[in-house]
């Protein structure tokens, strides 16, 4: 019995030695891993879902000319001089949809010059409430209010209806 056990153990030891001899050389001990990171941003397109206009209401001009401002945040209209106002003024709205949490930048429109009888007026100094760099929400939404100045010349002899289009450009940073 003792002999049989000894033989069995020795046989197992021999088999283990063979196994070790075969297995160890088969391991690819010389291979190394080179880890490379991959970075970037994969974004859905930025879309302007809707806009509402900047409304100046009715501006009763004064002979000296003036600059009036629609506040981007509140929509209130004010003049530097004694211009009076009627009707309803309001700030504009831009509604965006895009990549959640993405940062975007607005480029404001250039001055729009409109000629009228005896002079011209200028829509200028466009403002995005909250600044020209903002972030979309986690859900990918952003609504901003916009305002602008309207400067009119002293020499205007006849006014008219204001109807212009100003284009803000917005892009991912």
């Amino acid at each position, binding site marked *: 019995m003792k002999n049989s056990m*000894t*033989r069995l153990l*020795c046989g197992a*030891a*021999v088999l*283990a*030695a*063979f196994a*070790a*001899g*075969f297995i*160890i*050389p088969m391991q*690819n*001990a*010389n*291979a*190394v*891993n*080179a*880890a*490379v*990171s*991959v*970075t*970037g*941003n*994969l*974004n*859905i*397109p*930025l879309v302007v879902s809707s806009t509402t206009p900047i409304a100046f209401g009715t501006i009763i001009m004064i002979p000296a000319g003036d600059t009036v401002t629609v506040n981007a945040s509140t929509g209130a209209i004010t003049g530097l001089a004694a211009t009076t106002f009627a009707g309803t003024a309001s700030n504009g709205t831009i509604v965006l949809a895009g*990549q*959640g949490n993405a940062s975007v930048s607005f480029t404001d429109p250039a001055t729009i010059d409109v000629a009228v009888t005896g002079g011209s007026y200028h829509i200028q100094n466009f403002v995005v409430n909250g600044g020209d760099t903002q972030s979309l929400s986690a859900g*990918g939404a952003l609504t901003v209010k916009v305002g602008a100045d309207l400067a009119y010349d002293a020499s205007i002899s006849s006014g008219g209806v204001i109807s212009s289009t100003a284009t803000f450009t917005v892009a*991912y940073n």
Partner: protein
Amino acid sequence: MRRIGILIVAMIALGGPFAWVAPVKAQPVIDSTSSMNFGRIIMDTASGDTLTLNPSTGQLTAAGSSALSGVTSAGNISISGTPNQSLSILPPSDTPISFSGGNATLKNFTLTGGMTQSLNGGGTLSLGVGCDLQYDAHITQGGPINQSISFIIDYN
């Protein structure tokens, strides 16, 4: 006891050589790596697309109509080891990235010079790394890409 002694001697005599015949070679050393950067990809969510990052130039090109911006760069692997020794390189398998509404996949990994190369006489090798990024149509929200992939490098 004598039999046990004989068997142990036999075990060493038979088992030992298998272990000793295994070639003793130093490993190649990865001195440094730098990342692949795809910059910013504005997806064509209607059709999906495949972008290819060139391992040599780092230039990103689109097979379809994705809009590309930002800085892109190829990755790099710098290796040192036995001078003039040839190497085999096993690229990573396809690596999926999940987004809302669909997936993107990093695939078709490439190296400047291919997957079999040799260290130079000074025992160094620098490899540019590129790959494809394929994304599905109808992804509703993307996000940052931040993955790690591994090449396996071994002496031939």
